[in-house]
Structures are given as C-alpha cells and as structure tokens.
C-alpha cells in the first residue's frame, strides 16, 4: 500500500508541530548568554520533568484515571528506586526493575 496524499499531509503536519517545539528553544537559547536567574530556573526543570513523568506513570492507572498506590508498577518502583540510589547503575536498575516486575506478574 502506498501512502495517500491525505496521510502524507497528516504526517507532514504532525512532523512540523512536533519538530518546532524541539528545535526553537535550542536554536534561540544556545547562541546567547542567558540571564543567571533563567539558567538557575532551567537547572530545576529536568528533575521536575522526570518526576512529573514518572509519578503519574507509577501511581495513576486505569482508562478513567485513578490513584492506585498498590499495583505491581508502584510496588516495584520503591525497590527499583533504592537499587538505583545504592548502585547508581542505569543498566542494572533497568534489568533489576524488569526482573521484579516480571516476578510481580507471576505473583499477582
């Protein structure tokens, strides 16, 4: 099947609106010296984003979203977190987390 013109239009549109937010700040902010307060504020963005991505991923489930602190994804998170804190190994944490999650799936 060859992609039709309407599908290609859709992809072009999606591609552009995805690319622009990724590109514009890099293009603008990398070429000048930014004010100190802005750099300090940006410094806190990564930790905030990571947290904002991961917490709901772990603690919120369901088609209609609801809080669930005790399903496998959440229960595995604490030991995986502690493992990461202790070992500071990215690969190790990934494998350990996968193993625990697999184990949890066998138990639950």
């Amino acid at each position, binding site marked *: 099947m060859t992609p039709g013109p309407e599908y290609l239009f859709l992809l072009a549109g999606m591609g552009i609106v995805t690319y622009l937010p*990724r590109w514009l700040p890099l293009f603008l902010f990398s070429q000048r010296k930014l004010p100190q307060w802005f750099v300090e504020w940006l410094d806190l963005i990564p930790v905030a984003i*990571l947290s904002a991505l991961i917490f709901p991923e772990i603690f919120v489930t369901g088609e209609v979203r609801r809080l669930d602190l005790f399903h496998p994804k959440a229960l595995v998170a604490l030991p*995986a977190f502690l493992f990461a804190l202790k070992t*500071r190994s990215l690969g190790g944490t990934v494998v350990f987390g996968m193993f625990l999650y697999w184990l949890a799936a066998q138990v639950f």
Partner: protein
Amino acid sequence: MPSLNSDPAGCCGRGGGERCVSEGVKAGWPICLGYAPIGLAFGVLAQKAGLGVLEIGLMSLLVFAGSAQFIAVSMMVSGASPVSIILTTFIVNLRHVLMSSSLAVFLRGVDRRLLSLFAYGVTDESFAVNMTRFREGEWSTCSALVVNHISNLAWIACTMLGGYGGHFIPAGSFGIDYALVAMFLCLLVFQLRGRIYGITALLAGLFAVMLSLWIPGNAYVIIASLMAATAGFMLKRTLRKPTPYDARS
C-alpha cells in the same frame, strides 16, 4: 560555564568517532530496550487501524513521538480530521519546549545545523539520558546525537515490526514493559543532587499526580514541571538571602 562543545566537529571527525558512537550506544541501549514493547504495541494498533508497514515506518520517521503517535492513530480510527489530529499532536508535544530549553544551556555555541539535527531526536527518553550525561560533564554533542538516532532507529524498527507481525509476540514478556519506568527512576535518582532538587522532585510528582487525575490529556507534565521548578527556584532564592552558602547543598 558549560562550554564543553567548543569543538562540535572534533568528536565526529577523525579519531574520536568510534569512541563517540560506542559511548552513545552504551548510554542509549536502555531506551532502545524500552522502546521495544511500546513500539511493537504501537505497530499492532496502527496495523489494526488499517495502516501498512510503510505508512507506520513513515510516521515513526517523520513524527518520532510515542504518545502523540498512539493518540493520532486512535483519533484516525474514530474519524477525526487531519487538522484536529495535528493540533492535538502539537499540544501533546509542547512539553519538549522545556526539555530543549534546558538542553540548550549545555549546547552553547554548537553549530546550528548540528542543533537542528539534534532537535529532531529530543524525546522524553533521550532528553533524560543526555541531560544526565551533560551534567556529569565530558558528554559530546556527537554522543548525544548517537543516543537520539539509535533511539529513533529502534523506534522505527519496532513500530514497523509490530505492524508486520507484532501480535505473535506475547505481551509483557520478561517484564520488558518496566524497562522505561526503571530507566526514568534511575535517571531521576541521578538528578537528585541536593535538597532543592529533592524538594522540587517531590513537588513535581505530587502536582503531576493531582493534575493528571483532574485534567485530561498530558498537559499535567508541563504545568506540574513549571510549578515545581518555579517553587524550587523561589525556595532556593529565599534560602540564599541570609547566608550565600545555604543554597549550595
């Protein structure tokens, strides 16, 4: 001052090339692993929606945005217009503005063509990995590019494979669904470099959970991050006033 990229071409040129690629692969493999179950699942979904393998691959190449692609396909199934799908994609992917902004601090003075190529691969996952490495220092633009592009290749391959015959692979094998969650958890640990960061993380997590229960879509990521970073920043400023060294912790 993070000026580690005064020689953007150096690492990609003679000599350092191989090292740059191997460093990038070493940093990026968890992303590729984590993309496997999601990519396969997307491929299966897209195929059910009537897209061919080529069309799936083309979307992964031109858009390269996991959650937006899922949403787009389900909107296509429900008969939404291309314009409304494009608008939704824009809103869903707007969070990358924040990520690119904080990456820019570490890419001062890098060639704009290289930056334009780099921007293509800024995703939640590559951002998290590259940001951690940039912070640790000694991370070249070239290795960061490798992380972006092997992730992209893995994504394209997995989504196409899913469209080809992903339903033959049993879902949830080997706990692979947890790969990205574990990766993000560990990268979060790497970002906790002091009290302010810990407080900001907790606030962001709390805000995000509350907002995600309250408002539809994924706008909670942006709103919670902005709120938490601003709160953390103000706290840091307040703590600094009495003695300048307090805020350093």
